[in-house]
């Protein structure tokens, strides 16, 4: 699309250093960036590539523990690296605005949304309070928030995540900035909600001809949003090109590898003709203490050696089902069968042998591993507890487990979790689950916190372990690409009910239950026209929450 070619932001040879291990190390190693008025640039790369650091740098802002050490950042003719802090601050919010990844965490819980919205215009004396509030309501309406006249007067915790993310975009617009930095604005959202936010952001950026830097690790998302794409790796630029060219004709090997990710697909297994399921969830209802019913008549089977993916939006009851199976949350109705015999509902009443059968791997390996305990002990404790191993036998077992997860035992035996990378930590989580010698493992969003390349490694590892040890997995995820690569069977959940279930090949071919259809069609595709086409097909009022509500 033709746009006015007036340069708004010019970054040259930018170097940013971070403080770690008592010394300053380069985290951005000389990046150039040119952004014109009204242009949207996508910054993509894995975590640690420095996307967010560059985003903050474009505002002349160095996060705590970082410093801009070299290079120039020129915003609309003003050099930010030599400007005073007061001069830089005067740009923030008024001419350059920021939209953060987690709107829920980035809105101050103590103030009403609209008061946070009007803070900028009042501070810069652009509008009186009443005018600013009127304007906020107008923006809420443009961003298609429900009850635009009223929603701003709520507190952040009273509004859903997708709505908050749009309210944050409205807040960024409050002073009509020339540039907005979007820092992974939809990463924390469900796919169905994501569309709504993407459409809203694209609209508003076009309406006001605002330039934007759109930071994400999701290629399909950036394809919808950006005019040009810049690929980053470990603080350096890999390549930059227009979106169409980058998608159709990437030049660098690294870019190609990003594009090729998710090529992994495990061959689909089918249920044995006759046989008892390993785990059987039968008509389970559950709720937390006296709260509302979270699960409503949930039933499905998991056979030995197979992977059942449970998909659905957040709050659909996926993790609660897992808690019922492991006995952390006794169901209020129904039962859990293991090889045809009922499991005691409460884990406290289960025998050691029953307990060892079901193990968990968690989403955040960071918080699921005690940072002050050695790897050998993290893995060794369940081995000692369930199998009664001691001394040399225990050490051999831990070595064996580390071998299984492809980490060199002699090197990792005595280390602590904070010394490991995200992917390695998740491997330790897997080893801990394996130490109990289970037949069944619940994988709760195990790859969602990881980069795509690392996530693929974890999926391959899980797949190999399944074949070697004949494990059954319950794979909780909201990412349909993961489902495609690893699942044998799929269970779709919504509002605590099972909407649809069946073998993977059937689930990915129509006809679907309307909710499954919505879920599948909401997954962004690499085609840059995907969002436009989808909006034309469905209409702007029939996406996200609105579409979910109509079902």
């Amino acid at each position, binding site marked *: 699309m033709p746009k006015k070619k007036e340069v708004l932001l010019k970054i040259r040879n930018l170097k940013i250093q971070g403080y770690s291990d008592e010394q300053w190390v380069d985290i951005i190693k000389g990046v150039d960036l040119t952004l014109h008025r009204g242009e949207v640039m996508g910054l993509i790369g894995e975590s640690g590539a420095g996307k967010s650091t560059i985003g*903050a740098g474009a*505002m002349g*802002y160095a*996060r*705590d523990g970082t410093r801009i050490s070299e290079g120039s950042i020129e915003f609309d003719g003003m050099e930010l690296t030599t400007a005073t802090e007061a001069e830089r*601050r*005067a*740009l*923030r*919010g*008024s001419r350059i*605005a*920021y939209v*953060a*990844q*987690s709107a829920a*965490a*980035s*809105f*101050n*819980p*103590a*103030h009403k949304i609209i008061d946070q919205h009007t*803070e*900028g215009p009042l*501070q*810069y004396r652009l509008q009186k309070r009443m005018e600013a509030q009127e304007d906020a309501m107008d923006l809420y309406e443009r961003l298609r928030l429900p009850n635009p006249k009223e929603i701003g007067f*709520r*507190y952040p*915790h*009273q509004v859903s995540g997708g709505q908050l993310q749009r309210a944050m975009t409205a*807040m960024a617009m409050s002073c009509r900035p020339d540039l907005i930095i979007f820092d992974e604005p939809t990463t924390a959202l469900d796919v169905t909600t994501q569309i709504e936010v993407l459409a809203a952001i694209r609209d508003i950026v076009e309406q006001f001809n605002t330039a934007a830097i759109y930071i994400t690790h999701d290629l399909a998302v950036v394809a919808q949003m950006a005019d040009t794409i810049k690929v980053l790796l470990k603080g350096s630029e890999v390549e930059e090109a227009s979106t169409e060219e980058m998608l159709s004709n990437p030049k660098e090997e690294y870019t190609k590898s990003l594009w090729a990710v998710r090529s992994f697909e495990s061959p689909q297994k089918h249920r044995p003709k006759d046989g008892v399921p390993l785990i059987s969830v039968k008509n389970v209802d559950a709720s937390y203490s006296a709260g509302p019913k979270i699960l409503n008549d949930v039933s499905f089977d998991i056979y030995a050696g197979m992977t059942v993916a449970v998909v659905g939006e957040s709050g659909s009851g996926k993790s609660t089902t897992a808690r019922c199976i492991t006995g952390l949350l006794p169901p209020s109705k129904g039962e859990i069968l293991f090889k045809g015999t009922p499991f005691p509902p409460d884990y406290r009443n289960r025998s050691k042998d029953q307990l060892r059968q079901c193990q968990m791997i968690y989403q955040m390996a960071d918080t699921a591993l005690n940072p002050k305990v050695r790897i050998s002990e993290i893995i060794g404790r369940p081995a000692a507890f369930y199998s009664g191993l001691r001394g040399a036998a225990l050490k051999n077992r831990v070595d064996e487990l580390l071998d299984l997860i492809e980490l060199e035992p002699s090197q990792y035996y005595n280390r602590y979790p904070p010394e490991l990378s995200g992917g390695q930590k998740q491997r330790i989580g897997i080893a801990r689950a394996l130490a109990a010698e289970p037949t069944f493992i619940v994988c709760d969003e195990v790859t969602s916190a990881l980069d795509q390349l690392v996530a693929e490694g974890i999926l391959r590892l899980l797949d190999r372990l399944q074949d070697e040890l004949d494990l059954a997995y319950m794979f909780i995820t909201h990412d349909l690409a993961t489902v495609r690569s690893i699942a044998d069977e799929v269970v779709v959940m919504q509002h605590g009910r099972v909407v649809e279930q069946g073998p993977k090949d059937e689930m990915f071919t129509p006809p679907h239950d309307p909710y499954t259809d919505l879920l599948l069609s909401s997954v962004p595709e690499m085609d840059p026209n995907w969002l436009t086409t989808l909006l034309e097909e469905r209409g702007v009022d029939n996406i996200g929450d609105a579409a979910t509500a109509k079902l």
Partner: protein
Amino acid sequence: MGDILGLVGKRLGLGLVILFIISIIIFFMVELLPGDIAQAVLGQGATEENLAAMRKEMGLDQPAIVRYLGWLAGAVQFDFGSSIVTGKAVSAIIGERFVNTLFLAAYAAVIAVPIAIILGVIVALLRNSIFDRVANVATLTSISSPEFFLAYILILYFSIKWGMFPSNAKISDGMTLADLLYRTFLPALTLVLVVVAHMMRMTRASIISLLASPYIEMARLKGAPPWKVIVKHALPNAWAPIINVVALNLAYLITGVVLVEVVFVYPGIGQALVDAVSKRDFPVVQACCLIFAATFILLNLAADVGAILTNPRLRHPK
């Protein structure tokens, strides 16, 4: 709002249970002491017959549980029995003194709490600067010196060298408020110096612990000046721990002032307690202990309620 009332009600009920348990502990601890009230009253002149007669008269021949229930029944009506030294009702002895102690505590609190919180905000804003370090060292020094030592230093300068304030905080009924404030200034100042450090450091710490939050970064990226980031965005979310420390310090102002009262000859409840212990006046000791326990419980309850009220999630449910 119904939720909040429920929460407060629950806390209040729990407080009453704790108070009940404490009353048992206080009563039976005193029981465990060697000798009894009769012996204490009779002192040297205790013969077997005298003791027996005295015990009968005071009801000490009854089993402990009966006497406890009788004492408890009286205590809930603020009747703590009568002093075995003077024979006067305990409530008459400590009532007025407790009011005096409350006055001194309130005086100190009105000065100390705002100073501590404002100072805490300022040092959080100027963290790691010279001002921060000086404030830290100064308040730490004052908190680490024993209060009687601080009191004597203050007396040395303010009353002896400069003659600004009296060293004797004796008060009597007919005094005007201004007179009262003037006479009790030095003990109040001593208490202020003792409690400010704790509250200030907690304010600083709880604000700084929030500075890494995404919403603080957001406020900065919206161009809010540093003072506004601290006062408007961090402080409203930092109240809960601050309120807790304030409550603990207020409790200290009421229950921990014995030394200060003695140094300044201030007729507060601390002095009464010291007198009673040295004269083995058990009913007074028990009553003082119970009042102190109730003070702690009430103030902690107030802190809990305060923490609940400053939490927008509880104030504005979905």
